[in-house]
C-alpha cells in the first residue's frame, strides 16, 4: 500500500498549523497516517479482511483518505465499535490501553476534519432569513416597537450561531407567525403614534402605605388572638365528656393531640374555624399558620417605631412564604388606559447607615417575581437618609391593552422575592437581635412618567405612513398620495431594495378588497402592510447573483451586512445614504462607519448575541441555583455576572483593548452589585466600569468570572469536565471531538463518597474515555478553587448517598482542593494562578478561535478550511496591533470574504 504523507496528527492545532504555512488555501484532506493501520491489522484484520469478512465488514481495503461520505461512514463504524467496547470481542486479545487511546484520539480528530471538509460550502453564503432577534430589531427600527417574538422558533443552537443561514428554516406555520407578529407590531405602532403627545405622570408617596401596614398588623394581632382562643376551645372540647366516645375512638389514629383540630366538625361545642378567623376556608391548618406568624409582631412593632414613616416607608423583609406583605414590596401599577410607549420609572430612596453593604440593593420587576421569575433589573441604593437619591429606570410598555398582570410592578430589597432567601435572612436577624433583620432601605416615593418622543425619534416606517394615519376621512386621501406613502414604507421595510414587479398594485388590490369587506381604513391598511412585513424581501437578506461567478457586493449589500453584523439591525439612513452614493465601498469610509456602528449603543445587538453564543453561555440558564446553598448568587447577581462577560467584551470594544485581557487582566468590569459579590470595595451604582483588582486576585479575565464558573457547574457542584472542555474549546482553541455515542457507562462506584478528582479519574480507566479526558480533566481540576457560583474556596466536600437517596452526613468527606496538574503532553502547574499563566501565554490560539467565531457569526456560514488564509491574515494584522479588539472587526469587514457574494 502506498504510504501517504502524515497530515492528520495528534492534535487539531497541529493539523491547522500544517496548513497555515501553505500559501494556497486548499482544505486539508482528512487522511490517516498509514502507520495507524498497524493498530487495525494487529487487532481487527484477522476477522475483518478478505472477501468474506466477519459481519461483512472489511477493514483491509478501507481508504486512508476520508474524502467521501461513504469512506467517512466506514471509519465512523470503526470508531463506534472501538468506543462502545464492542470490538475487539471480549474473548480476543485487547489492545494496550494507551495505544487504544492514542488511536481513538487520532481517529476522532480525523473524523472531525473529514466532517468539516465534507460539509464545506466553499465560501458560499446561503441567503438567509432574519433570525429571531434580527427580526425583532428590524421591526423596532422600522416601527419603534418592541414585539414579543418568543412564538418564533429559537434559532440559536449549541452547535452554530443563530446567523448561520443553512439552519434558519422557514415553514408554513412560521409564515403565519410572521403575519401575526407583524399585525401586532403595526397595531402597537399606530396606537403609539396616535398617543405620541399624551402625557402621563403619577407619583406615589411611600408613606401612603402606612395605613394599610397598620391595618394588616392589627388584623394579624386580632387573628392571632382569635386563633389562640380557638385552640383553647379545641382543648376544652377534647376534654369534654360530650366528646369522650369520639375522642377515645379517634385518638389512636392520631400522631399528636393537635391533630384533633382536623376533626373539628365532629367535636361538639367547638366553633368552626371561620367563626374565629373569617375567610380561613374552615381549614384549621390556616389557624396554625397564623399562630406561627407571631414572630412578625415584634418585627412589625419595630417597623412602626422607626422614624421617617410620615414621609416615606421602608422595604421590609418577608419572613418566609407565608409572611404578610407588610411593605416587603412597594407596588407600582400602570393604569390600563395608559398608552404604549417609553416610560421612565423613578424611585427616590436611601440606604440606612445600619444596612450592610450587600443589602443596599433593590430589585424592580413584575409583581410576583421570585425564584422562578427574575426581576427586570437590580439597582444599587447609594442615597443616604440625609440625601436620598433618585434611581431612574427606563421602561418600554409594549402590551397595548393586554394582560393587566404585565402592568403591575413592584420594588423589593434584593433577593427577598425568594421565600427561601428571605426566610434565611429573617432567621439570621432574629438570631442576632431577637426581632428580625435590620430595615435597610427607605423609600420616599415612586414615580412613573411617559416620555414624549422628540420629532426626530419618529421611526422611518411611521414617518412614511404619516399621510395615511393622520386622517379622519380615509376616502379623501388622493390615491397617488396613498401609493407614494406605501412605496416609501416598502423602501424602508425592504432596506432600500426595490419591491417586486407589480407588488404595489397587488397591495392596492388587497387594501381595496379588504375595504370591500366593510373593514375600516386602519384595519385594511394593517392587513396590507402585514403583507409587506411577511414578504421575502423583508424577511430575507437576499444578495442576488448567479451560481458560479462570485461577485463584489454592491454598496447597499455591504451596508446591510455591516449593520446586521454590528447591530443585528437594518442599516440606518446614514449607512443607506453612503450605500446609495457608493462611498461605503471605499475602505476608509467603511472603516469609519464600522467605528461609528461600534460606538453606537445599538452595538449591544452585536456584543450580547455574539458573546453569549461564542462562549456557550446558554448553560447559565440550565440551572436554578438553590438560594439555600448559594444565597448570594440570587437571580439579580446571576444577571450581573452574565452582564460582566458582555460588559468586559464591550469595554474592550469601545476602548480598543487587547483581547488577551480576556485571558488574564489586572482589572474587572463590574457594577456595584457584582463588586459586592467579588468583595471589591468602593464601587457604587449600576453602571459597569473598569475596576483594578489586587495583584494576587483570581479575578480579571474570563477565568475569574463568576458566570464562567457557574456555566461550568451543574447548579450545585463544580463540573471539572465542563470547565476543562470549555477552556479547550474557547480559550485554547483545541476543541475535543464531540462526545461519542454508545460509550459504556460507569456505575460501579455508586453509593461511595468520592472526591471530585477520584470520581473523574475514573474517566481515565477506559482508553475510549481517556483519549479525551486526559486533556480535559487536568484543566478542570486546576479550576476547582472556584465553587459552583464562582466563589473562591480552598476545600470541598461530598457525602455518599444512602439507600433512601439522601446524602448521608456520616459519610461526609472534606478535602483540601489540590489544583495541581499538567496539560496533557504540556506544562505543569501547581495552582490556578499558574494554570492561568499557561493559558494566557497562548494568546494567538485564543485569537484564532475568536476570529473563526467572528467569521462564522458575521458571514452566516461555518468557518471552513478555505477560510484559513483569512483567519491567518486577521490574526496577523491583530498581532501587529497588540491584539486590539477593533483590528479583528476591521480586518474582517475589509476582507474580500465580507465584501463578496
Amino acid at each position: 500500500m502506498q504510504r501517504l504523507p502524515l497530515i492528520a496528527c495528534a492534535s487539531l492545532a497541529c493539523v491547522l498549523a500544517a496548513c497555515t504555512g501553505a500559501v494556497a488555501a486548499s482544505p486539508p484532506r482528512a487522511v490517516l497516517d498509514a502507520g495507524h493501520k498497524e493498530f487495525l491489522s494487529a487487532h481487527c484484520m484477522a476477522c475483518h479482511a478478505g472477501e468474506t469478512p466477519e459481519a461483512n465488514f472489511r477493514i483491509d481495503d478501507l481508504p486512508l483518505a476520508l474524502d467521501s461520505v461513504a469512506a467517512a461512514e466506514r471509519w465512523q463504524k470503526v470508531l463506534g465499535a472501538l468506543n462502545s467496547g464492542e470490538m475487539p470481542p471480549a474473548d480476543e486479545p485487547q489492545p494496550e490501553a494507551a495505544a487504544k487511546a492514542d488511536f481513538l484520539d487520532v481517529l476522532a480528530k480525523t473524523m472531525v476534519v473529514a466532517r468539516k471538509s465534507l460539509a464545506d460550502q466553499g465560501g458560499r453564503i446561503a441567503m438567509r432569513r432574519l433570525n429571531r432577534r434580527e427580526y425583532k430589531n428590524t421591526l423596532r427600527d422600522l416601527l419603534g416597537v418592541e414585539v414579543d417574538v418568543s412564538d418564533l422558533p429559537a434559532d440559536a443552537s449549541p452547535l452554530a450561531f443563530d446567523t448561520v443561514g443553512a439552519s434558519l428554516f422557514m415553514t408554513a406555520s412560521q409564515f403565519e407567525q410572521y403575519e401575526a407578529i407583524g399585525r401586532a407590531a403595526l397595531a402597537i405602532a399606530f396606537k403609539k403614534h396616535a398617543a405620541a403627545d399624551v402625557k402621563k405622570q403619577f407619583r406615589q408617596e411611600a408613606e401612603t402605605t402606612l395605613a394599610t401596614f397598620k391595618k394588616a398588623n392589627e388584623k394579624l394581632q386580632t387573628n392571632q388572638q382569635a386563633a389562640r382562643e380557638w385552640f383553647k376551645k379545641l382543648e376544652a372540647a377534647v376534654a369534654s365528656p360530650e366528646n369522650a366516645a369520639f375522642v377515645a375512638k379517634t385518638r389512636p389514629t392520631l400522631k399528636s393531640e393537635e391533630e384533633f383540630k382536623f376533626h373539628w366538625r365532629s367535636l361538639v361545642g367547638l366553633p368552626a374555624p371561620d367563626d374565629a378567623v373569617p375567610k380561613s376556608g374552615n381549614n384549621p391548618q390556616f389557624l396554625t399558620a397564623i399562630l406561627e406568624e407571631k414572630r412578625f409582631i415584634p418585627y412589625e412593632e419595630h417597623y412602626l417605631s422607626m422614624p421617617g414613616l410620615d414621609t416615606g416607608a421602608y422595604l421590609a423583609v418577608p419572613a418566609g412564604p407565608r409572611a404578610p406583605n407588610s411593605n416587603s414590596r412597594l407596588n407600582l401599577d400602570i393604569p390600563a388606559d395608559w398608552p404604549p410607549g417609553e416610560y421612565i420609572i423613578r424611585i427616590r430612596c436611601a440606604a440606612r447607615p445600619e444596612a450592610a453593604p450587600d443589602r443596599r440593593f433593590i430589585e424592580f420587576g413584575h409583581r410576583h417575581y421570585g425564584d422562578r421569575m427574575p426581576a427586570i433589573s437590580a439597582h444599587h441604593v447609594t442615597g443616604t437618609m440625609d440625601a436620598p437619591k433618585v434611581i431612574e429606570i427606563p421602561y418600554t410598555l409594549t402590551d397595548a391593552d393586554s394582560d393587566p398582570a404585565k402592568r403591575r410592578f413592584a420594588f423589593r430589597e434584593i433577593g427577598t422575592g425568594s421565600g427561601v432567601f428571605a426566610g434565611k435572612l429573617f432567621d439570621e436577624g432574629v438570631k442576632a437581635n431577637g426581632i428580625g433583620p435590620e430595615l435597610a432601605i427607605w423609600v420616599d416615593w415612586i414615580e412613573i412618567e411617559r416620555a414624549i418622543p422628540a420629532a426626530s425619534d419618529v421611526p422611518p416606517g411611521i414617518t412614511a405612513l404619516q399621510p395615511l394615519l393622520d386622517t379622519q376621512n380615509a376616502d379623501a386621501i388622493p390615491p397617488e398620495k396613498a401609493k407614494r406613502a406605501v412605496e416609501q414604507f416598502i423602501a424602508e421595510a425592504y432596506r432600500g431594495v426595490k419591491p417586486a414587479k407589480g407588488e404595489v398594485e397587488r397591495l392596492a388590490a388587497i387594501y381595496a378588497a379588504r375595504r370591500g369587506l366593510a373593514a375600516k381604513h386602519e384595519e385594511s391598511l394593517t392587513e396590507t402592510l402585514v403583507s409587506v412585513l411577511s414578504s421575502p424581501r423583508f424577511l430575507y437578506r437576499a444578495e442576488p447573483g448567479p451560481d458560479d461567478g462570485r461577485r463584489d457586493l454592491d454598496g447597499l449589500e455591504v451596508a446591510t451586512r455591516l449593520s446586521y453584523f454590528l447591530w443585528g439591525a437594518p442599516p440606518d439612513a446614514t449607512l443607506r445614504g453612503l450605500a446609495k452614493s457608493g462611498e461605503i465601498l471605499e475602505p476608509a469610509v467603511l472603516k469609519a462607519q464600522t467605528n461609528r456602528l461600534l460606538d453606537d449603543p445599538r452595538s449591544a445587538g452585536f456584543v450580547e448575541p455574539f458573546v453569549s453564543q461564542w462562549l456557550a453561555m446558554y448553560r447559565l440558564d440550565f440551572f436554578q441555583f438553590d438560594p439555600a446553598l448559594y444565597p448570594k448568587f440570587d437571580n439579580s447577581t446571576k444577571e450581573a455576572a452574565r452582564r460582566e462577560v458582555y460588559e468586559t467584551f464591550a469595554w474592550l470594544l469601545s476602548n480598543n483593548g487587547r483581547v488577551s485581557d480576556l485571558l488574564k487582566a489586572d482589572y474587572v468590569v463590574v457594577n456595584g452589585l457584582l463588586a459586592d459579590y467579588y468583595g471589591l470595595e468602593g464601587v457604587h451604582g449600576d453602571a459597569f466600569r473598569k475596576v483594578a483588582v489586587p495583584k494576587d486576585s483570581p479575578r480579571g479575565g474570563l477565568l475569574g468570572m463568576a458566570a464562567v464558573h457557574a456555566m461550568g457547574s451543574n447548579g450545585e457542584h463544580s463540573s471539572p469536565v465542563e470547565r476543562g472542555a470549555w477552556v479547550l474549546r474557547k480559550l485554547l482553541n483545541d476543541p475535543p471531538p464531540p462526545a461519542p455515542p454508545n460509550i459504556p457507562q460507569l456505575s460501579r462506584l455508586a453509593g461511595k463518597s468520592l472526591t471530585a478528582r477520584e470520581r473523574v479519574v475514573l474517566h481515565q480507566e477506559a482508553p475510549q474515555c481517556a483519549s479525551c479526558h486526559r486533556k480535559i480533566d487536568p484543566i478542570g481540576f486546576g479550576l476547582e478553587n472556584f465553587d459552583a457560583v464562582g466563589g473562591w474556596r480552598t476545600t470541598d466536600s461530598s457525602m455518599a448517598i444512602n439507600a433512601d437517596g439522601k446524602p448521608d452526613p456520616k459519610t461526609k468527606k472534606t478535602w483540601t482542593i489540590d489544583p495541581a496538574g499538567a496539560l496533557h503532553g504540556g506544562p505543569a502547574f501547581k495552582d490556578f494562578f499558574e494554570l492561568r499563566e499557561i493559558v494566557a501565554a497562548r494568546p494567538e490560539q485564543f485569537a484564532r478561535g475568536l476570529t473563526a467565531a467572528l467569521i462564522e457569526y458575521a458571514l452566516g456560514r461555518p468557518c471552513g478550511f478555505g477560510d484559513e488564509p483569512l483567519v491567518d491574515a486577521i490574526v496577523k494584522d491583530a498581532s501587529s496591533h497588540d491584539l486590539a479588539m477593533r483590528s479583528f472587526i476591521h480586518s474582517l469587514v475589509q476582507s474580500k470574504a465580507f465584501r463578496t457574494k
Partner: protein
Amino acid sequence: MKPLTTCISRRHVLATGTAVIALPAFESLGFRRCAAAAAGATPPKRLVFLGFGWGVTEDEWYPKIGEPGAGYGLPAMLEPLAKHKADFSIVQGLWNRLTGNGHYGSTFWLTGANEYGAPGQSFFNSVSVDQVAARSLGTDTRFESLALDCGEAAGGSGHGPGLSLSWDSRGKPVGGPRNPVEAFHRLFAKETTPLEQQKALLGQRRSILDNALENARDLGRSLGTTDQDKLDEYLQGIRDLETRLSRDEKWIGAPRPEPSLDEPKPGLAGREEIALMYDVIVAAIQTDSTRVLTYRQPVTTLLTSMGLKTEAHTMSHYHGRPGDVVESSRKRDLAQSELLAGLIKKLKDTKEPDGSTLFDHTTVVYGSNIRTGHSLDNCPTLIAGRGAGVKLGENIVVTKGTPLCNAWLTLLKGSGVNAGSFGDSTGELGEIKA
C-alpha cells in the same frame, strides 16, 4: 371539472395537491357525510408518535433480554403501566445506525437519516415516517397530520434540531402547535363568521398568499441555486398554506367537531401540559380531525413541574451519580409511564361509532433515539394499540443492530400505507407482527 360525488375522486383531487386550483363548490355537508360514512364502515387507522428526548433509566426501564415473550417481569420504571401490560410491547435491539449525535433524541428518530449525508452541507435530514403515513392516511380529514411540540422547552429536552418530531419530504422541519391551547384552537376553534364572509375572507387570504408567492418568484429569478434552495422553503411554506386553504374551502360550513375536553388553561407546563396534550390527541382522533399525530414532549419542564432541580441533560448522565440525579431520572420515567398509561386508558375507553374503541385502530409509538446518556443503540421503543397489527403484551427482542426503520416500515404497512421501504430499512420486522 366534474362535480365530485364519490370519496375516491375527492381523495384523488386532494392527493394530487391543489395549491392554486379553484375547487368546485361541492356541497360541503355531503362531503362531511362522505367522510363520516367511510368512517362508519371501518374506523380508520391512526398513528401517534410520542418522543421524549433524553432516553430512560436503562437498568430499570427495559425488561430483561433473557425474558422475551409475554412472560416477562415488568420493570420498575414501567410499573405505572402494569394495568396495561397486555396493551403494549417493548421492542429491544433497534437503532438508527446512521445517527451519531448523543444529544439528538428526536431529530432523526422518525427518519433514520445520516446528518452528514449530503456533501457540502452541514446538516441533512429526510422525511419522517409520520409524514409518509400522512400522505395516505390524511386525505379525508380536516388536517392531514398534526405535529405537536413543546415550544421553548424543546431546547433543553434532548430532542436536537427540528420544530417537532416531523420532517417533510424535502427533509425540512415541520412545525405545529406548541402547547395544548394552540393545539386545541387549531382543532376546535369555533367559526362565528357568517358563511359568505368566511368565503370572502378565504378569497382575501388567497390573494395575500398569491402576493407572497409572486414576490418570492420575482426574487427567485435573480438568485443562484443555493439561495433558490433557501427561498424554496418560503415558497413551500406558502404552498402548504394554500393547500391548507383549499382544504379549508372544502370544509367551509362543516361545523368544527365538539371536542371531548374543555378549552385548556394557558400557562401549564410539564406534567400537566403533557397530560392535556394527550387529551387533545385523543379528542383529535375521536373527532377524526386527523389520523396522524406526533408530539415532541417537554422534559425540562416535566422535571421542574415535579419540583426536581436536576438539569435535564445532567439527569441523562445519571450513571455513577446516585442521589438526586438518578432519582430525577427515575421520577421522570415514572411520570412519563403514568402519563402514557393515562393515554392508553383513554384510547381504550373511547368508543368508535361501530362499538370498537380508538385503541383498536390506533398505534401509539413511544420512544426516543437516545437510550440513555449518549447511547443510541437499543433505543427505547414501546408500541401500543391494535391499529397496525402489532403483537402486544410482549418483550420482543430482535437481533441487536436491527434498523429502527424496519419497525417504521412495518407500522406503515400494518396501517395500510403502501410503502416499499423506509429510511435505511432492510425489510419488515416480522417479529413484531401479531
